[in-house]
Protein backbone atom coordinates (compact mmCIF):
# COMPACT_ATOMS: atom_id res chain seq x y z
CA UNK A 1 0.00 0.00 0.00
CA UNK A 2 2.54 2.62 -1.10
CA UNK A 3 1.44 6.12 -0.46
CA UNK A 4 1.71 8.48 -3.36
CA UNK A 5 3.76 11.38 -2.07
CA UNK A 6 3.17 13.50 -5.13
CA UNK A 7 -0.40 14.39 -4.38
CA UNK A 8 -0.80 17.85 -2.93
CA UNK A 9 -2.17 17.59 0.56
CA UNK A 10 -5.09 19.50 1.88
CA UNK A 11 -4.06 22.24 4.25
CA UNK A 12 -5.34 20.91 7.51
CA UNK A 13 -3.96 23.30 10.07
CA UNK A 14 -6.42 23.58 12.88
CA UNK A 15 -6.78 27.33 12.44
CA UNK A 16 -9.06 26.55 9.55
CA UNK A 17 -11.76 25.10 11.66
CA UNK A 18 -13.03 28.48 12.57
CA UNK A 19 -16.28 29.52 11.03
CA UNK A 20 -16.49 30.23 7.34
CA UNK A 21 -19.24 32.19 5.80
CA UNK A 22 -20.89 30.17 3.13
CA UNK A 23 -22.85 32.91 1.47
CA UNK A 24 -23.34 31.09 -1.82
CA UNK A 25 -25.11 28.34 0.00
CA UNK A 26 -27.26 30.70 1.99
CA UNK A 27 -28.43 32.36 -1.19
CA UNK A 28 -29.44 29.05 -2.71
CA UNK A 29 -31.29 27.90 0.36
CA UNK A 30 -32.99 31.28 0.60
CA UNK A 31 -34.18 30.94 -2.98
CA UNK A 32 -35.58 27.51 -2.23
CA UNK A 33 -37.38 28.87 0.81
CA UNK A 34 -38.99 31.61 -1.22
CA UNK A 35 -40.31 28.97 -3.58
CA UNK A 36 -42.19 27.54 -0.64
CA UNK A 37 -43.75 30.92 0.02
CA UNK A 38 -45.45 30.80 -3.37
CA UNK A 39 -47.83 28.15 -2.15
CA UNK A 40 -48.94 30.40 0.69
CA UNK A 41 -49.43 33.24 -1.77
CA UNK A 42 -51.67 31.05 -3.90
CA UNK A 43 -53.98 30.31 -1.01
CA UNK A 44 -54.05 33.95 0.02
CA UNK A 45 -54.86 34.84 -3.57
CA UNK A 46 -57.71 32.36 -3.69
CA UNK A 47 -59.18 33.59 -0.44
CA UNK A 48 -58.92 37.22 -1.49
CA UNK A 49 -60.36 36.51 -4.89
CA UNK A 50 -63.35 34.78 -3.34
CA UNK A 51 -63.94 36.99 -0.33
CA UNK A 52 -63.92 40.40 -1.92
CA UNK A 53 -66.78 40.11 -4.37
CA UNK A 54 -68.64 37.68 -2.10
CA UNK A 55 -68.78 40.17 0.73
CA UNK A 56 -70.12 42.77 -1.66
CA UNK A 57 -72.67 40.28 -2.91
CA UNK A 58 -73.88 39.44 0.56
CA UNK A 59 -74.42 43.09 1.28
CA UNK A 60 -77.09 43.07 -1.41
CA UNK A 61 -78.43 39.59 -0.94
CA UNK A 62 -78.95 38.29 2.58
CA UNK A 63 -77.47 34.98 3.64
CA UNK A 64 -80.91 33.76 4.51
CA UNK A 65 -82.26 34.47 1.08
CA UNK A 66 -79.18 32.90 -0.49
CA UNK A 67 -79.43 29.64 1.37
CA UNK A 68 -83.18 29.14 1.50
CA UNK A 69 -84.71 30.36 -1.75
CA UNK A 70 -85.30 27.51 -4.11
CA UNK A 71 -85.01 29.46 -7.31
CA UNK A 72 -81.75 30.43 -8.92
CA UNK A 73 -82.24 33.00 -11.64
CA UNK A 74 -79.64 35.73 -11.38
CA UNK A 75 -80.03 36.94 -14.93
CA UNK A 76 -83.80 37.16 -14.96
CA UNK A 77 -86.03 40.02 -14.03
CA UNK A 78 -86.75 39.94 -11.17
CA UNK A 79 -83.54 38.09 -10.25
CA UNK A 80 -83.66 35.30 -7.73
CA UNK A 81 -80.57 34.33 -5.74
CA UNK A 82 -81.43 31.09 -4.03
CA UNK A 83 -78.51 28.68 -4.16
CA UNK A 84 -80.62 25.67 -3.17
CA UNK A 85 -81.10 24.40 -6.75
CA UNK A 86 -77.36 24.48 -7.28
CA UNK A 87 -76.87 22.63 -4.02
CA UNK A 88 -79.40 19.95 -4.94
CA UNK A 89 -77.84 19.67 -8.35
CA UNK A 90 -74.42 19.10 -6.82
CA UNK A 91 -75.92 16.74 -4.28
CA UNK A 92 -77.67 14.70 -6.92
CA UNK A 93 -74.65 14.19 -9.15
CA UNK A 94 -72.40 13.55 -6.19
CA UNK A 95 -74.78 10.96 -4.83
CA UNK A 96 -74.74 8.90 -8.00
CA UNK A 97 -71.02 9.30 -8.25
CA UNK A 98 -70.66 7.87 -4.77
CA UNK A 99 -73.01 4.97 -5.53
CA UNK A 100 -70.57 3.95 -8.22
CA UNK A 101 -67.15 4.85 -6.94
CA UNK A 102 -67.38 4.02 -3.23
CA UNK A 103 -68.51 0.37 -3.25
CA UNK A 104 -66.84 -0.51 -6.52
CA UNK A 105 -63.63 1.29 -5.63
CA UNK A 106 -63.45 -0.47 -2.30
CA UNK A 107 -64.25 -3.79 -3.92
CA UNK A 108 -61.45 -3.36 -6.44
CA UNK A 109 -59.08 -2.41 -3.66
CA UNK A 110 -59.93 -5.46 -1.58
CA UNK A 111 -59.59 -7.72 -4.57
CA UNK A 112 -56.24 -6.30 -5.62
CA UNK A 113 -54.87 -6.20 -2.12
CA UNK A 114 -56.11 -9.49 -0.68
CA UNK A 115 -57.10 -11.83 -3.45
CA UNK A 116 -55.34 -11.11 -6.69
CA UNK A 117 -52.13 -12.81 -7.67
CA UNK A 118 -49.11 -10.69 -8.40
CA UNK A 119 -49.58 -11.08 -12.12
CA UNK A 120 -53.19 -9.98 -12.04
CA UNK A 121 -52.31 -7.02 -9.88
CA UNK A 122 -49.47 -6.03 -12.16
CA UNK A 123 -51.84 -6.16 -15.12
CA UNK A 124 -54.84 -4.44 -13.58
CA UNK A 125 -53.27 -1.59 -11.62
CA UNK A 126 -51.80 0.23 -14.63
CA UNK A 127 -55.12 -0.03 -16.41
CA UNK A 128 -56.90 1.60 -13.50
CA UNK A 129 -54.27 4.30 -13.46
CA UNK A 130 -54.96 4.97 -17.11
CA UNK A 131 -58.61 5.38 -16.26
CA UNK A 132 -57.69 7.93 -13.63
CA UNK A 133 -55.70 9.87 -16.17
CA UNK A 134 -58.43 10.25 -18.77
CA UNK A 135 -59.22 13.95 -19.20
CA UNK A 136 -62.62 14.92 -17.87
CA UNK A 137 -63.76 16.33 -21.20
CA UNK A 138 -63.41 12.85 -22.67
CA UNK A 139 -65.54 11.39 -19.92
CA UNK A 140 -68.09 14.11 -20.44
CA UNK A 141 -68.30 13.18 -24.10
CA UNK A 142 -68.79 9.57 -23.09
CA UNK A 143 -71.60 10.47 -20.70
CA UNK A 144 -73.45 12.54 -23.24
CA UNK A 145 -73.02 10.47 -26.36
CA UNK A 146 -72.98 6.95 -24.99
CA UNK A 147 -74.51 6.63 -21.56
CA UNK A 148 -77.53 8.88 -21.94
CA UNK A 149 -78.65 7.35 -25.27
CA UNK A 150 -78.03 3.93 -23.74
CA UNK A 151 -80.31 4.69 -20.83
CA UNK A 152 -82.95 5.97 -23.16
CA UNK A 153 -82.70 2.94 -25.36
CA UNK A 154 -83.44 0.64 -22.45
CA UNK A 155 -86.56 2.56 -21.67
CA UNK A 156 -85.60 5.10 -19.06
CA UNK A 157 -86.65 8.45 -20.46
CA UNK A 158 -84.03 10.64 -18.95
CA UNK A 159 -83.55 14.18 -20.13
CA UNK A 160 -80.76 14.68 -22.63
CA UNK A 161 -78.84 16.38 -19.86
CA UNK A 162 -79.41 14.60 -16.60
CA UNK A 163 -77.85 14.18 -13.20
CA UNK A 164 -77.64 10.41 -13.33
CA UNK A 165 -75.42 10.06 -16.41
CA UNK A 166 -73.09 12.76 -15.20
CA UNK A 167 -73.01 11.30 -11.72
CA UNK A 168 -72.26 7.76 -12.88
CA UNK A 169 -69.44 8.96 -15.09
CA UNK A 170 -67.97 11.02 -12.27
CA UNK A 171 -68.10 7.80 -10.29
CA UNK A 172 -66.13 6.04 -13.03
CA UNK A 173 -63.60 8.87 -12.92
CA UNK A 174 -63.14 8.56 -9.17
CA UNK A 175 -63.22 4.77 -8.90
CA UNK A 176 -59.46 4.42 -9.43
CA UNK A 177 -58.79 7.08 -6.78
CA UNK A 178 -60.83 5.28 -4.15
CA UNK A 179 -59.33 1.98 -5.23
CA UNK A 180 -55.71 3.05 -5.06
CA UNK A 181 -55.93 5.00 -1.80
CA UNK A 182 -57.88 2.21 -0.11
CA UNK A 183 -55.43 -0.32 -1.42
CA UNK A 184 -52.54 1.70 0.04
CA UNK A 185 -54.34 1.70 3.36
CA UNK A 186 -54.81 -2.05 3.25
CA UNK A 187 -51.26 -2.68 2.14
CA UNK A 188 -50.08 -0.80 5.20
CA UNK A 189 -51.76 -3.30 7.50
CA UNK A 190 -48.90 -5.49 8.75
CA UNK A 191 -48.88 -8.92 7.19
CA UNK A 192 -48.42 -10.40 10.64
CA UNK A 193 -52.07 -9.59 11.31
CA UNK A 194 -53.16 -11.53 8.26
CA UNK A 195 -50.83 -14.41 8.91
CA UNK A 196 -52.03 -14.67 12.47
CA UNK A 197 -55.63 -14.87 11.31
CA UNK A 198 -54.92 -17.41 8.62
CA UNK A 199 -53.03 -19.38 11.19
CA UNK A 200 -56.18 -19.54 13.27
CA UNK A 201 -58.01 -21.12 10.38
CA UNK A 202 -59.88 -18.15 8.96
CA UNK A 203 -60.58 -18.05 5.25
CA UNK A 204 -59.79 -15.15 2.99
CA UNK A 205 -63.28 -13.70 3.17
CA UNK A 206 -63.13 -13.54 6.94
CA UNK A 207 -59.62 -12.16 7.03
CA UNK A 208 -60.44 -9.44 4.53
CA UNK A 209 -63.69 -8.32 6.08
CA UNK A 210 -62.98 -8.84 9.74
CA UNK A 211 -59.29 -8.07 10.03
CA UNK A 212 -57.85 -6.07 7.16
CA UNK A 213 -60.66 -3.66 6.33
CA UNK A 214 -61.29 -2.71 9.96
CA UNK A 215 -57.57 -2.18 10.48
CA UNK A 216 -57.36 0.06 7.43
CA UNK A 217 -60.64 1.83 8.03
CA UNK A 218 -59.31 5.32 8.57
CA UNK A 219 -57.29 5.23 5.36
CA UNK A 220 -60.29 3.85 3.49
CA UNK A 221 -62.59 6.45 4.99
CA UNK A 222 -60.12 9.17 4.06
CA UNK A 223 -60.11 8.01 0.46
CA UNK A 224 -63.91 8.11 0.39
CA UNK A 225 -64.11 11.58 1.86
CA UNK A 226 -61.56 12.73 -0.70
CA UNK A 227 -63.63 11.17 -3.48
CA UNK A 228 -66.76 12.97 -2.29
CA UNK A 229 -64.84 16.22 -2.22
CA UNK A 230 -63.63 15.70 -5.75
CA UNK A 231 -67.07 14.72 -6.95
CA UNK A 232 -68.45 17.96 -5.57
CA UNK A 233 -65.72 19.92 -7.29
CA UNK A 234 -65.97 18.24 -10.69
CA UNK A 235 -66.84 20.71 -13.42
CA UNK A 236 -66.34 19.53 -16.97
CA UNK A 237 -68.37 16.35 -16.82
CA UNK A 238 -71.38 18.08 -15.32
CA UNK A 239 -71.01 20.98 -17.66
CA UNK A 240 -71.25 18.65 -20.62
CA UNK A 241 -73.72 16.08 -19.40
CA UNK A 242 -75.75 17.35 -16.47
CA UNK A 243 -77.14 20.49 -17.94
CA UNK A 244 -77.55 24.11 -17.05
CA UNK A 245 -81.08 24.12 -15.79
CA UNK A 246 -81.11 25.27 -12.19
CA UNK A 247 -84.07 23.47 -10.72
CA UNK A 248 -84.53 22.08 -7.26
CA UNK A 249 -84.94 18.39 -7.87
CA UNK A 250 -83.42 15.15 -6.74
CA UNK A 251 -84.77 13.02 -9.54
CA UNK A 252 -81.84 11.42 -11.28
CA UNK A 253 -83.34 11.74 -14.70
CA UNK A 254 -83.76 15.49 -14.51
CA UNK A 255 -81.43 18.10 -15.85
CA UNK A 256 -79.70 20.05 -13.11
CA UNK A 257 -77.08 22.70 -12.70
CA UNK A 258 -74.32 22.17 -10.19
CA UNK A 259 -72.41 24.92 -8.45
CA UNK A 260 -69.37 24.19 -10.55
CA UNK A 261 -71.26 24.22 -13.83
CA UNK A 262 -72.82 27.53 -12.95
CA UNK A 263 -69.44 29.07 -12.17
CA UNK A 264 -67.91 27.78 -15.38
CA UNK A 265 -70.80 28.77 -17.61
CA UNK A 266 -71.17 32.24 -16.18
CA UNK A 267 -67.46 32.83 -15.91
CA UNK A 268 -66.91 32.07 -19.55
CA UNK A 269 -69.96 33.99 -20.63
CA UNK A 270 -70.71 37.61 -21.28
CA UNK A 271 -71.59 38.84 -17.83
CA UNK A 272 -70.08 42.25 -17.20
CA UNK A 273 -67.60 42.81 -14.42
CA UNK A 274 -68.93 44.43 -11.29
CA UNK A 275 -72.58 43.54 -11.65
CA UNK A 276 -74.40 41.45 -9.09
CA UNK A 277 -74.62 38.68 -11.64
CA UNK A 278 -70.83 38.74 -11.89
CA UNK A 279 -70.49 38.58 -8.14
CA UNK A 280 -72.65 35.48 -7.98
CA UNK A 281 -69.70 33.61 -9.46
CA UNK A 282 -67.69 34.40 -6.36
CA UNK A 283 -70.47 33.83 -3.89
CA UNK A 284 -71.17 30.37 -5.27
CA UNK A 285 -67.42 29.81 -5.51
CA UNK A 286 -67.01 30.66 -1.85
CA UNK A 287 -69.75 28.21 -0.92
CA UNK A 288 -68.06 25.51 -2.96
CA UNK A 289 -64.68 26.33 -1.46
CA UNK A 290 -65.94 26.13 2.10
CA UNK A 291 -67.67 22.79 1.54
CA UNK A 292 -64.66 21.17 -0.10
CA UNK A 293 -62.29 22.72 2.44
CA UNK A 294 -64.26 21.16 5.28
CA UNK A 295 -64.21 17.77 3.61
CA UNK A 296 -60.52 18.03 2.80
CA UNK A 297 -59.61 18.86 6.37
CA UNK A 298 -61.58 15.84 7.57
CA UNK A 299 -59.80 13.65 5.03
CA UNK A 300 -56.36 15.00 5.92
CA UNK A 301 -57.00 14.38 9.61
CA UNK A 302 -58.04 10.82 8.85
CA UNK A 303 -54.95 10.16 6.80
CA UNK A 304 -52.77 11.50 9.55
CA UNK A 305 -54.46 9.25 12.07
CA UNK A 306 -54.00 6.22 9.85
CA UNK A 307 -50.36 7.07 9.27
CA UNK A 308 -49.68 7.46 12.96
CA UNK A 309 -50.86 3.97 13.66
CA UNK A 310 -48.45 2.35 11.29
CA UNK A 311 -45.40 4.56 11.12
Amino acid at each position, binding site marked *: *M*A*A*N*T*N*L*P*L*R*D*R*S*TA*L*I*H*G*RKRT*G*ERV*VIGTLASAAIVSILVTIGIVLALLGPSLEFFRDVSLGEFFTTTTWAPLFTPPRYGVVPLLTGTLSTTFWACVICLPLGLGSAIYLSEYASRRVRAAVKPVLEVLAGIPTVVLGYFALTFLTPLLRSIGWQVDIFNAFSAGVIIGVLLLPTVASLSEDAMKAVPSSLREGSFGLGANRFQVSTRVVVPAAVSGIAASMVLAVSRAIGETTIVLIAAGQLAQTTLMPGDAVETMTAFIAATGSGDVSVGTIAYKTIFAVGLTLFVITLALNIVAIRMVRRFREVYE
Partner: protein
Amino acid sequence: MVEIEAQPDAAPTQMATRGVPLNVAGVATRTAPTDLSVEQPELVFDCREIGVRYNGVRALRDVNLQIRRNAVTALIGPSGCGKSTFLRCLNRMNDLIPGAEVDGVCLYHDEDLYGPNIDAIEVRKRIGMVFQKPNPFPKSIYDNIAFGPRVVGLKDHLDDRIEEALRRAALWDEVKDRLKEGALSLSGGQQQRLCIARALAVEPDVILMDEPCSALDPISTAAIEDLMTSLKTDYTVVIVTHNMQQAARVADTTAFFSTDQGETGTRCGVLIEVAATEKIFTKPENERTEAYVTGRFG
Protein backbone atom coordinates in the same frame (compact mmCIF):
# COMPACT_ATOMS: atom_id res chain seq x y z
CA MET B 1 -28.62 25.32 -13.09
CA VAL B 2 -26.22 26.38 -10.38
CA GLU B 3 -23.11 24.27 -9.95
CA ILE B 4 -22.19 23.94 -6.35
CA GLU B 5 -18.45 24.29 -5.95
CA ALA B 6 -16.58 24.05 -2.71
CA GLN B 7 -13.84 26.54 -2.10
CA PRO B 8 -10.39 24.93 -2.08
CA ASP B 9 -9.05 25.05 1.38
CA ALA B 10 -5.83 26.87 0.50
CA ALA B 11 -3.90 28.09 -2.49
CA PRO B 12 -2.09 25.27 -4.30
CA THR B 13 1.33 26.81 -3.83
CA GLN B 14 1.11 26.27 -0.11
CA MET B 15 0.53 22.61 -0.41
CA ALA B 16 3.28 20.60 -1.94
CA THR B 17 6.23 22.46 -0.57
CA ARG B 18 5.62 22.05 3.13
CA GLY B 19 8.17 20.00 4.95
CA VAL B 20 6.03 16.96 5.55
CA PRO B 21 7.94 14.56 7.78
CA LEU B 22 8.82 11.24 6.27
CA ASN B 23 9.04 8.14 8.32
CA VAL B 24 11.73 5.51 8.00
CA ALA B 25 10.24 3.87 4.95
CA GLY B 26 10.15 7.15 3.06
CA VAL B 27 6.39 7.25 3.21
CA ALA B 28 4.80 10.59 3.95
CA THR B 29 2.99 10.53 7.24
CA ARG B 30 -0.34 12.26 6.96
CA THR B 31 -0.77 13.49 10.46
CA ALA B 32 -2.02 16.81 11.66
CA PRO B 33 -1.24 19.42 12.66
CA THR B 34 1.15 20.72 10.08
CA ASP B 35 2.59 23.43 12.23
CA LEU B 36 6.05 22.04 12.87
CA SER B 37 7.40 24.80 15.02
CA VAL B 38 5.60 23.38 18.05
CA GLU B 39 6.32 19.89 19.30
CA GLN B 40 3.50 17.72 18.17
CA PRO B 41 1.17 16.95 21.06
CA GLU B 42 0.37 13.43 21.97
CA LEU B 43 -3.30 14.03 22.50
CA VAL B 44 -5.72 14.32 19.65
CA PHE B 45 -8.84 14.59 21.78
CA ASP B 46 -9.07 15.80 25.34
CA CYS B 47 -12.65 15.41 26.50
CA ARG B 48 -13.72 16.83 29.83
CA GLU B 49 -17.10 16.25 31.45
CA ILE B 50 -18.75 15.49 28.14
CA GLY B 51 -22.47 14.84 28.43
CA VAL B 52 -25.38 14.61 25.98
CA ARG B 53 -29.08 15.19 26.41
CA TYR B 54 -31.77 14.29 23.88
CA ASN B 55 -34.79 16.54 24.23
CA GLY B 56 -33.82 17.25 27.78
CA VAL B 57 -33.39 13.61 28.77
CA ARG B 58 -29.81 12.88 29.74
CA ALA B 59 -28.23 10.03 27.79
CA LEU B 60 -24.56 10.45 28.70
CA ARG B 61 -22.69 12.25 31.43
CA ASP B 62 -19.33 13.18 32.82
CA VAL B 63 -17.10 11.51 30.30
CA ASN B 64 -13.43 12.35 30.79
CA LEU B 65 -11.44 10.71 28.06
CA GLN B 66 -8.25 11.36 26.15
CA ILE B 67 -7.53 9.93 22.73
CA ARG B 68 -3.91 9.51 21.69
CA ARG B 69 -2.46 10.03 18.28
CA ASN B 70 -1.75 7.10 15.96
CA ALA B 71 -3.43 4.60 18.20
CA VAL B 72 -6.64 2.61 18.15
CA THR B 73 -8.95 3.45 21.01
CA ALA B 74 -11.91 1.16 21.55
CA LEU B 75 -15.12 2.06 23.36
CA ILE B 76 -16.80 -1.04 24.75
CA GLY B 77 -19.79 -1.73 26.91
CA PRO B 78 -23.34 -3.09 26.82
CA SER B 79 -26.03 -1.65 24.53
CA GLY B 80 -27.53 1.67 25.31
CA CYS B 81 -24.69 3.08 27.38
CA GLY B 82 -23.88 5.99 25.16
CA LYS B 83 -20.80 4.78 23.29
CA SER B 84 -22.12 5.78 19.89
CA THR B 85 -23.51 8.98 21.32
CA PHE B 86 -20.07 9.86 22.64
CA LEU B 87 -18.44 8.94 19.35
CA ARG B 88 -20.77 11.31 17.54
CA CYS B 89 -19.66 14.09 19.83
CA LEU B 90 -16.17 13.84 18.43
CA ASN B 91 -17.17 14.95 14.94
CA ARG B 92 -20.20 17.07 15.66
CA MET B 93 -22.58 14.52 14.16
CA ASN B 94 -24.91 15.02 17.10
CA ASP B 95 -25.66 18.42 15.55
CA LEU B 96 -27.73 16.58 12.97
CA ILE B 97 -30.04 15.07 15.57
CA PRO B 98 -32.81 17.50 16.46
CA GLY B 99 -33.06 18.02 20.19
CA ALA B 100 -29.54 16.82 20.95
CA GLU B 101 -27.47 19.00 23.30
CA VAL B 102 -23.83 18.45 24.11
CA ASP B 103 -22.27 19.86 27.24
CA GLY B 104 -18.73 19.71 28.52
CA VAL B 105 -15.56 20.54 26.68
CA CYS B 106 -14.09 18.55 23.83
CA LEU B 107 -10.65 19.73 22.82
CA TYR B 108 -9.31 18.65 19.48
CA HIS B 109 -5.65 19.62 19.23
CA ASP B 110 -6.39 22.17 21.93
CA GLU B 111 -9.31 23.68 20.00
CA ASP B 112 -12.73 23.52 21.59
CA LEU B 113 -14.81 21.65 19.03
CA TYR B 114 -17.99 23.22 20.30
CA GLY B 115 -16.62 26.72 20.46
CA PRO B 116 -18.57 29.63 19.04
CA ASN B 117 -16.71 30.04 15.76
CA ILE B 118 -16.14 26.44 14.90
CA ASP B 119 -17.44 25.29 11.55
CA ALA B 120 -18.85 21.78 11.91
CA ILE B 121 -18.34 21.09 8.23
CA GLU B 122 -14.61 21.70 8.53
CA VAL B 123 -14.51 19.54 11.64
CA ARG B 124 -15.96 16.62 9.74
CA LYS B 125 -13.41 17.01 6.99
CA ARG B 126 -10.75 16.24 9.56
CA ILE B 127 -12.61 13.70 11.63
CA GLY B 128 -14.19 11.10 9.41
CA MET B 129 -16.75 8.47 10.30
CA VAL B 130 -17.67 4.99 9.18
CA PHE B 131 -21.07 3.65 10.15
CA GLN B 132 -22.40 0.36 11.39
CA LYS B 133 -24.25 -0.49 8.25
CA PRO B 134 -22.21 0.26 5.13
CA ASN B 135 -23.83 3.20 3.34
CA PRO B 136 -22.26 3.69 -0.07
CA PHE B 137 -24.01 6.12 -2.38
CA PRO B 138 -26.12 4.52 -5.11
CA LYS B 139 -23.46 5.34 -7.68
CA SER B 140 -20.31 3.84 -9.11
CA ILE B 141 -17.34 2.90 -6.95
CA TYR B 142 -15.37 5.69 -8.57
CA ASP B 143 -18.01 8.31 -7.87
CA ASN B 144 -18.33 7.18 -4.28
CA ILE B 145 -14.69 7.82 -3.53
CA ALA B 146 -14.58 10.92 -5.69
CA PHE B 147 -17.40 12.55 -3.73
CA GLY B 148 -15.16 13.65 -0.88
CA PRO B 149 -12.37 15.24 -2.96
CA ARG B 150 -14.87 16.91 -5.25
CA VAL B 151 -16.76 18.41 -2.37
CA VAL B 152 -13.62 19.55 -0.61
CA GLY B 153 -12.18 21.09 -3.74
CA LEU B 154 -9.46 18.59 -4.57
CA LYS B 155 -10.37 18.14 -8.19
CA ASP B 156 -6.88 17.45 -9.50
CA HIS B 157 -5.33 14.01 -9.82
CA LEU B 158 -8.69 12.50 -9.02
CA ASP B 159 -7.80 9.10 -10.42
CA ASP B 160 -4.64 8.97 -8.33
CA ARG B 161 -6.43 9.99 -5.20
CA ILE B 162 -9.04 7.33 -5.69
CA GLU B 163 -6.42 4.67 -6.28
CA GLU B 164 -4.55 5.68 -3.18
CA ALA B 165 -7.65 5.70 -1.02
CA LEU B 166 -8.63 2.26 -2.25
CA ARG B 167 -5.12 0.96 -1.63
CA ARG B 168 -5.10 2.26 1.90
CA ALA B 169 -8.43 0.58 2.49
CA ALA B 170 -7.10 -2.71 1.11
CA LEU B 171 -9.74 -2.72 -1.62
CA TRP B 172 -7.80 -1.64 -4.71
CA ASP B 173 -6.88 -5.08 -6.00
CA GLU B 174 -10.42 -6.30 -5.81
CA VAL B 175 -12.07 -3.42 -7.63
CA LYS B 176 -9.40 -1.86 -9.81
CA ASP B 177 -10.95 -3.32 -12.95
CA ARG B 178 -14.48 -2.30 -12.20
CA LEU B 179 -14.37 1.19 -10.83
CA LYS B 180 -17.31 2.25 -12.94
CA GLU B 181 -19.60 -0.45 -11.61
CA GLY B 182 -22.18 0.22 -8.99
CA ALA B 183 -21.04 0.33 -5.39
CA LEU B 184 -24.11 -1.60 -4.30
CA SER B 185 -22.94 -4.60 -6.27
CA LEU B 186 -20.12 -5.19 -3.80
CA SER B 187 -20.38 -7.57 -0.89
CA GLY B 188 -21.01 -6.24 2.62
CA GLY B 189 -17.38 -6.37 3.64
CA GLN B 190 -16.28 -4.72 0.43
CA GLN B 191 -18.88 -2.00 0.83
CA GLN B 192 -17.59 -1.25 4.30
CA ARG B 193 -14.03 -1.01 3.02
CA LEU B 194 -15.37 1.24 0.30
CA CYS B 195 -16.86 3.49 2.95
CA ILE B 196 -13.50 3.52 4.71
CA ALA B 197 -11.77 4.41 1.45
CA ARG B 198 -14.35 7.13 0.89
CA ALA B 199 -13.52 8.60 4.28
CA LEU B 200 -9.79 8.32 3.63
CA ALA B 201 -10.06 10.21 0.35
CA VAL B 202 -10.87 13.37 2.27
CA GLU B 203 -7.47 13.07 4.04
CA PRO B 204 -8.77 13.08 7.57
CA ASP B 205 -6.78 13.18 10.73
CA VAL B 206 -9.00 10.88 12.72
CA ILE B 207 -11.25 8.03 11.70
CA LEU B 208 -14.22 7.17 13.88
CA MET B 209 -15.87 3.80 13.40
CA ASP B 210 -19.23 3.00 14.90
CA GLU B 211 -19.44 -0.81 15.20
CA PRO B 212 -18.02 -1.19 11.71
CA CYS B 213 -18.08 -4.97 11.68
CA SER B 214 -21.35 -5.78 13.37
CA ALA B 215 -23.18 -6.20 10.06
CA LEU B 216 -20.40 -8.28 8.46
CA ASP B 217 -19.38 -11.91 8.28
CA PRO B 218 -16.27 -13.12 10.18
CA ILE B 219 -13.95 -13.08 7.19
CA SER B 220 -14.79 -9.48 6.29
CA THR B 221 -14.51 -8.62 9.97
CA ALA B 222 -10.98 -10.01 10.07
CA ALA B 223 -10.04 -8.02 6.97
CA ILE B 224 -11.30 -4.81 8.51
CA GLU B 225 -9.57 -5.47 11.79
CA ASP B 226 -6.29 -5.87 9.91
CA LEU B 227 -7.10 -2.61 8.19
CA MET B 228 -7.58 -0.83 11.49
CA THR B 229 -4.19 -1.95 12.66
CA SER B 230 -2.49 -0.70 9.52
CA LEU B 231 -4.42 2.57 9.47
CA LYS B 232 -3.15 3.64 12.85
CA THR B 233 0.27 4.31 11.39
CA ASP B 234 -1.08 7.34 9.66
CA TYR B 235 -4.36 8.10 11.36
CA THR B 236 -5.93 8.09 14.77
CA VAL B 237 -8.68 5.53 15.06
CA VAL B 238 -11.53 5.40 17.55
CA ILE B 239 -13.94 2.51 17.34
CA VAL B 240 -17.12 1.57 19.13
CA THR B 241 -17.57 -2.14 19.40
CA HIS B 242 -19.92 -4.60 21.01
CA ASN B 243 -17.40 -7.30 20.59
CA MET B 244 -14.93 -7.42 23.46
CA GLN B 245 -12.64 -9.78 21.67
CA GLN B 246 -12.38 -7.35 18.80
CA ALA B 247 -11.29 -4.64 21.18
CA ALA B 248 -8.77 -7.01 22.68
CA ARG B 249 -7.41 -7.78 19.23
CA VAL B 250 -7.05 -4.32 17.74
CA ALA B 251 -7.17 -1.62 20.39
CA ASP B 252 -4.27 0.02 22.20
CA THR B 253 -6.51 1.78 24.68
CA THR B 254 -9.94 0.61 25.75
CA ALA B 255 -12.67 2.60 27.47
CA PHE B 256 -15.49 0.76 29.20
CA PHE B 257 -18.90 2.42 29.33
CA SER B 258 -21.94 1.40 31.29
CA THR B 259 -25.18 2.86 32.57
CA ASP B 260 -26.12 4.53 35.79
CA GLN B 261 -29.37 5.74 37.19
CA GLY B 262 -29.55 9.31 35.97
CA GLU B 263 -30.81 12.46 37.64
CA THR B 264 -34.46 11.80 36.97
CA GLY B 265 -34.23 8.08 37.47
CA THR B 266 -33.70 7.30 33.79
CA ARG B 267 -30.73 5.28 32.67
CA CYS B 268 -27.78 7.33 31.52
CA GLY B 269 -24.43 6.37 30.04
CA VAL B 270 -21.20 6.86 31.97
CA LEU B 271 -17.55 6.09 31.44
CA ILE B 272 -16.47 3.53 34.01
CA GLU B 273 -12.82 2.99 33.28
CA VAL B 274 -10.27 3.69 30.59
CA ALA B 275 -6.80 2.14 30.39
CA ALA B 276 -4.42 0.26 28.15
CA THR B 277 -6.28 -2.66 26.61
CA GLU B 278 -4.21 -5.30 28.29
CA LYS B 279 -4.85 -3.82 31.68
CA ILE B 280 -8.61 -3.53 31.11
CA PHE B 281 -8.86 -7.16 30.23
CA THR B 282 -6.47 -8.62 32.78
CA LYS B 283 -6.36 -6.30 35.79
CA PRO B 284 -9.30 -3.92 35.66
CA GLU B 285 -9.58 -1.60 38.61
CA ASN B 286 -13.34 -1.19 38.68
CA GLU B 287 -15.42 -4.19 39.62
CA ARG B 288 -18.04 -3.36 37.02
CA THR B 289 -15.37 -3.49 34.36
CA GLU B 290 -14.27 -6.82 35.67
CA ALA B 291 -17.82 -8.14 35.65
CA TYR B 292 -18.26 -7.13 32.03
CA VAL B 293 -14.99 -8.38 30.64
CA THR B 294 -15.26 -11.70 32.40
CA GLY B 295 -18.70 -12.14 30.97
CA ARG B 296 -20.60 -12.07 34.19
CA PHE B 297 -22.93 -9.51 32.73
CA GLY B 298 -23.35 -8.23 29.24
